[in-house]
């Protein structure tokens, strides 16, 4: 069931928010020992919020499509009175006295928070193999990782525990678990959704966005989240739109760029075919597919990594005395950041501007780009390398090749399930657009979703 379907059922009195919330909590109780998607479950508070939601609906006070819907947020968003660990032992006892902006907005929209999802420690990694709160398992195959860093959010949505879970994305952390768990993940434009109360990993690369079971649901959530927030210096005053796409939208007049270079090299069997099939479907729906050449995205990824290394080290430097409590993989990244110089950082930021100038030229040719989200389906836990005919790559930089660079430019992107690989694992197609083109991205995604075979939920 999607948010839209549940919202209709609530208004038709076929179901109550309390029933939906109990079902969510039951499913979490039944499967979370296995999946470890949650760090904290807020059962009592959730049921109280669900009762209030039902009461309000009964009184005719309707807060909109998220009213009474059970949701979760990654444990990187501050929640008043509920511990917010950031997936780290260092923050194990941190109980904020305020809600993050996205939590405020979701509560105001009537959503029912059932818990905080597990994640890669400090949101700094892609496996969500958390050394303190358990390794999150992929609902499609528990031996595989769900992706990260918003792995618990991806797993929770894919496993039907919640209708939506919030994630954060610094170098792909919403889109990666979305692709590997077979759900929709939306990273909005930088500044579109407030970062207030999002525990930072990187001040200039972090984005907040939803993981959902459908494109329509992602749009509903963005409608609730988008807007200026004076508490976030990078928040935008750009006008907010209605992001919900029409039913079965036409793509007439939309020019979709299909990269000829970079995005289709070194990909696992089935990946290129699935995305090319999606491009064909877009064309059948009225879009024009334009082959495009993209600039040196590999170099952009490296520069993005340098910025992340330095900014994340700066974020965590005040806690340096406790770095031995951080998992090895994350601690090594923080240490790397300390060794880069101020000059290196400024040069990286200068290159960031030049690279944006280079890449943005693509928007003169096309409205959006269609690429694979990930070069591989979800890897087995413990895998450290990608192996190709012509060599190997470390998992983290290798797997994030297609998602990382655009965070430097703040561009919006969405990962849409686009089929299964030969092993039956979900694959994602990524739609990238220029700033504030979320409505168009969602329209393209909705058109493709309507034509692609819907993935059956994973057998748990």
């Amino acid at each position, binding site marked *: 069931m999607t948010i839209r379907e549940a919202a209709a059922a609530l208004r038709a009195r076929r179901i109550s928010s309390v029933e939906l919330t109990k079902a969510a909590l039951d499913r979490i109780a039944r499967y979370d020992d296995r999946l470890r998607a949650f760090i904290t479950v807020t059962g009592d508070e959730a049921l109280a919020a669900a009762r209030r939601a039902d009461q309000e609906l009964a009184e005719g006070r309707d807060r909109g499509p998220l009213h009474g819907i059970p949701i979760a947020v990654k444990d990187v968003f501050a929640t008043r009175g509920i511990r917010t660990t950031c997936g780290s032992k260092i923050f194990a006892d941190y109980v904020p006295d305020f809600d993050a902006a996205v939590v405020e907005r979701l509560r105001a929209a009537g959503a029912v928070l059932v818990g905080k999802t597990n994640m890669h420690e400090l949101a700094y990694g892609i496996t969500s193999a958390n050394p303190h709160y358990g390794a999150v398992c992929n609902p499609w195959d528990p031996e595989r990782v769900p992706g990260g860093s918003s792995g618990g959010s991806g797993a929770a949505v894919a496993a039907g525990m919640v209708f939506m879970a919030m994630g954060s994305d610094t170098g792909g952390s919403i889109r990666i678990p979305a692709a590997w768990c077979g759900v929709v993940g939306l990273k909005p*434009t*930088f*500044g*579109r959704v407030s970062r207030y109360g999002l525990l930072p990993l990187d001040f*200039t690369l972090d984005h907040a966005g939803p993981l959902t079971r459908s494109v329509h649901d992602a749009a509903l959530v963005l409608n609730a989240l988008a807007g200026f927030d004076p508490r976030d210096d*990078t928040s*935008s005053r*750009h006008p907010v739109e209605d992001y919900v796409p029409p039913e079965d939208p036409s793509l007439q007049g939309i*020019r979709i760029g299909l990269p000829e270079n970079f995005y289709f090299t070194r990909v696992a069997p089935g990946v290129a075919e699935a995305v090319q099939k999606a491009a064909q479907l877009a064309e059948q729906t009225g879009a024009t597919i334009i082959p495009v050449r993209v600039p040196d995205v590999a*170099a952009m990824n*490296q*520069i993005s*990594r*340098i910025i992340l*290394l330095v900014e994340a080290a700066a974020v965590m430097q005040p806690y340096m005395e406790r770095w031995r409590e951080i998992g090895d993989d994350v*601690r*090594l990244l923080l*240490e*790397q950041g*300390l*060794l*880069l110089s101020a000059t*290196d950082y*400024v*040069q*990286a*930021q*200068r*290159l*960031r*501007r*030049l690279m*944006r100038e280079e890449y*943005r030229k693509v*928007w*003169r*040719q*096309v*409205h959006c780009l269609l690429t694979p989200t990930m070069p591989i389906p979800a890897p087995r836990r413990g895998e450290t390398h990608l192996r190709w005919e012509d060599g190997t790559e470390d998992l983290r930089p290798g797997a994030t090749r297609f998602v990382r660079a655009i965070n430097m*430019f*703040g*561009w919006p992107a969405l990962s849409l399930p686009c089929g299964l690989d030969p092993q039956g694992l979900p694959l994602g197609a990524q739609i990238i657009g*220029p*700033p*504030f*083109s979320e409505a168009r991205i969602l329209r393209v995604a909705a058109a493709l979703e309507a034509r692609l075979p819907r993935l059956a939920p994973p057998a748990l």
Partner: protein
Amino acid sequence: MPDWRLLAAARGLNLPEEDLHRIEPVLDELYAVLSDRAARIPLTAEPLINFRCEVEEEAI
């Protein structure tokens, strides 16, 4: 290429030997890309530190 061990020592970071061993090749790889590109940055190119997205005026 910078001597990362020397840098760590100079900054008094006291990083474990095992960590330094794993860090060095990663930083070497990143630094190679950075230094190559940085050598060609035009004099007037400014950093993108105060980052805020704006509408693409030239977008179709």
